[in-house]
């Protein structure tokens, strides 16, 4: 019973992971990011130009 519960939990976690992976990939595509470093550069650029910092 415990083993079955554990398996169900793992399956749910895997499903969630896959769902999130797909959502993340969709987000990257929508926002025009292909690489992680692009987000980092984008964020750094945004912060550098923020007024009154």
């Amino acid at each position, binding site marked *: 019973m415990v083993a079955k519960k554990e398996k169900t939990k793992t399956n749910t976690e895997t499903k969630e992971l896959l769902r999130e992976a797909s959502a993340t990939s969709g987000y990257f595509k929508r926002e025009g990011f292909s690489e992680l*470093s692009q987000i980092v550069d984008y964020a750094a650029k*945004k912060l550098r130009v923020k007024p009154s910092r």
Partner: protein
Amino acid sequence: MIWENIIRRLNAVKCLTAHIKGTRLSTKDKSSYYRSALIIICSIVEGLAYEIVKKNTPPPDHFFEDTQKYSEVCNIRSSVLGTTSDVHLYRRQKVGLKINDEGATFARYNLFLKHNRIVSSGQYKTLDWMRRERNRLHIQGLTKADVDYTKIKIKRAAKAISFLISKV
């Protein structure tokens, strides 16, 4: 100063991910680098969340949540009441939680962002996931092997930087 420090940490994430990309590493070693990158990203996201709460609350205290404060009114001895232990009476007061109070946590910042519709429920889900990932820093609280740090997790975390940065 927070902005300069965030930029420094963004650079650290870039260095780490470039290193992973440019070096032949075992999956285990990659996971270690991703762990470090993830923790750094979580700290950046927490900093951004803090700044957004600050931006959306009035200075100087930046009260952002109502909370309860309990102060003891009296203590009735067990011998008087015939109970097994003393009975303590507390007064409950509604007080505002300031952004820099001890109880002002990443979890509460995230809830503020959600309740004030600054982030969507999907974005809140990501932020709360990041908070849980960040908490894996506390090694004593881990109940399973500290593994499974992957590129996709880093990308998911970076997504949070991207959607928060436009709100600061």
